[in-house]
């Protein structure tokens, strides 16, 4: 890699021999790249992973899952849960009916009914509950619920809300009886307003989704090509035929690397477009609450993000190709690459929970994490150009190291003929 770059630099300075060498190396790289890319385009599995899967999966993930979540929330908020009431409290029951917070039911064994999910919660009242309230005895009431059932958890919230309203009504009555205005207990009224713009809110939404999917598809997009182009060639018996031709190992590896990178970046672009289309035009139809959300990426941000994503994809492509060259067979190559997938996706998820690192310059030279921190800044509109340059330069350096490793492995007899 370094030799290829050095020959190119010398050629640019006017060294005729270096110019001829660079031209020849360029021709070899183009030859390998064109052949690998042509084969990839003819491979239905590659096309499925690169185009069809992202185009189908992204709308399902970005719209389908939030839709199901919203549907469940809607059901929970609009359906009055059946709650077993143990004990007597006519005023409380009346409030329950009029507020429609819960639907009180009577059962012989309330706890068993809750476990059997015939009721969603149990409200346990002490004997003579309302008499105790009337005597200011501060009676204790119990709420039983099933934490493993989201509907039961929602019913618990409604029971707590009911008890709170009942308590407020009792307090109001007591204050009035003592000639005190209940408003005297509220000297301050809180008025809260959200100042975040729709663009910022959409940035937050994208910052929570995009890095994860870019990470995923930067690996998945190039995986089948990386496996096929090195371990696959070993298995098919075509690698030896290639190695006895004039191209240097550098030219062969760089040509293959570029084709893996093309697939990886292609998959990332398809994923981002599919996600943006889904969010921008699908959200308002599927999710009623997001009708005002402005999901868009300014063109400048999109271009910078693409640049950062290409460098990240280059690192992933280089590492995958090196692993595939080292592997004895495509099966072994896939076994090597699968952990890489998790090592990449986990930081993409973690980055939103380690925001305290976001302001530290050193975080932008950590491989993989640097890319996701840079994405986050870009999407949240808090760009620090120093951070971006650090992340880009370090990613380019790691990618060059990965390609160099692939070249070294391709040049080793013990790796090429590893059995």
């Amino acid at each position, binding site marked *: 890699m370094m030799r290829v770059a050095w020959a190119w630099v010398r050629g640019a300075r006017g060294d005729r021999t270096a110019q001829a060498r660079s031209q*020849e190396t360029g*021709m*070899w790289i183009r*030859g*390998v790249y*064109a*052949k690998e890319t*042509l*084969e990839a385009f*003819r*491979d239905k599995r590659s096309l499925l992973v690169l185009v069809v899967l992202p185009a189908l999966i992204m709308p399902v993930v970005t719209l389908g899952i939030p839709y199901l979540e919203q549907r469940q929330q809607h059901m929970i908020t609009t359906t009055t849960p059946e709650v077993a009431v143990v004990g007597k409290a006519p005023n409380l029951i009346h409030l329950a009916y009029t507020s429609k917070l819960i639907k009180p039911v009577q059962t012989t064994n309330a706890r068993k009914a809750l476990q059997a999910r015939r009721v969603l919660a149990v409200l346990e009242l002490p004997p003579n509950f309302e008499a105790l309230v009337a005597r200011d005895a501060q009676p204790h009431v119990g709420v039983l619920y099933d934490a493993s059932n989201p509907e039961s958890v929602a019913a618990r919230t409604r029971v707590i809300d009911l008890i709170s309203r009942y308590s407020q009504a009792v307090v109001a009555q007591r204050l009035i009886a003592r000639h005190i205005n209940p408003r005297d207990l509220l000297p301050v009224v809180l008025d809260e307003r959200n100042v975040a713009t729709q663009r910022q809110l959409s940035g937050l939404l994208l910052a929570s989704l995009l890095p994860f999917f870019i990470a995923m598809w930067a690996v998945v997009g190039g995986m089948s090509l990386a496996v096929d182009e090195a371990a696959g060639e070993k298995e*098919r*018996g*075509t690698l*030896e*035929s*290639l*190695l*006895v*031709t*004039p*191209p*240097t190992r550098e030219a062969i590896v760089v040509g293959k690397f570029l084709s893996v990178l093309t697939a990886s970046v292609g998959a990332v672009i398809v994923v981002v477009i599919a996600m943006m289309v889904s969010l921008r035009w699908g959200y308002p139809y599927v999710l009623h609450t997001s009708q005002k959300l402005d999901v868009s990426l300014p063109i400048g941000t999109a271009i910078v993000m693409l640049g950062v994503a290409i460098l990240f994809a280059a690192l992933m492509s280089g590492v995958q190709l090196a692993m595939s060259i080292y592997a004895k067979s495509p099966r072994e190559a896939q076994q090597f690459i699968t952990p890489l997938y998790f090592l990449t996706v986990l930081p993409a998820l973690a980055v939103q929970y380690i925001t305290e690192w976001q302001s530290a310059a050193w975080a932008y030279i950590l491989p993989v994490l640097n890319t996701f921190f840079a994405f986050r800044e870009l999407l949240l509109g808090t760009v620090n150009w120093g951070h971006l340059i650090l992340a880009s330069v370090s990613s380019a350096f790691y990618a060059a190291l990965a390609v160099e490793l692939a070249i070294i492995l391709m040049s080793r*007899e*013990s790796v*090429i*003929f590893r059995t």
Partner: protein
Amino acid sequence: MSITPQVRQPDRAGRTESGEGRQLLVEARDLQKKFKSYHAVRGVSFTCYSGEVFGLLGPNGAGKTTTIRMLTTILRPTSGSARIAGHDVVHEAEAVRRAIGVLPENAGVYGRLTGREAIRYAGRLYGLPRDVLEPRIVEIADALELTKHLDRLTDTYSKGMKQKVNVARALIHNPSVVFLDEPTSGLDVISARSVRDFVLRFKAEGRCVILSTHVMEEAERLCDRVGIIAGGRIRSEGTLDALKAETGKDLEEIFVAMVEESIVT
């Protein structure tokens, strides 16, 4: 009974008794290859001239493929030296690769390329310009009777046709030295015959052919000289007639004796 190795060394000008008037194209001198503790090749020396077919005969694991891999620059010799078309295999590897055409053992094909694309790919790697490459593809395909299948994906080819594509790839740049490692292995009778006819054609065209095989009949029909390799050493080397005259045995008997001797030693 044992037969001692008989390797005729060429002089510095590249001429030997058997190579008079022809160009010395392959010259291996005491080639050795060790893989950690395993000594795969223990000193192989031979020569081959233009218009000659040299057979490397030996059982599986004898060191034939390792020797060919050293001569084709894929493996670096542990010791010894070799020159192909005047170029050192270690220090001038790229020049060697430009001069040779190689059909490796069990060579596969790119299944998602057509025959034409696979041959064109090889031509591009050898740096052939388009106006030379395209007529050359047609010429080779005609000679190999591949023309009408040239635009089909090679995945749909028979094994014999795939081997023909590999032969075409090895010859696209008109090499002066051709290495064929078990070229008829696994082929049906017709395909094997077609490949053998091609070996004779290479010879007639003045190429130097190194043929690795363990099929005695094939060696007898195609080779001008053979080197019997066993246990990583050339046990005997010379023309078929000379070997037979020297031992009073046919080639198969000589081969078996060499292999048995290598096991004992």
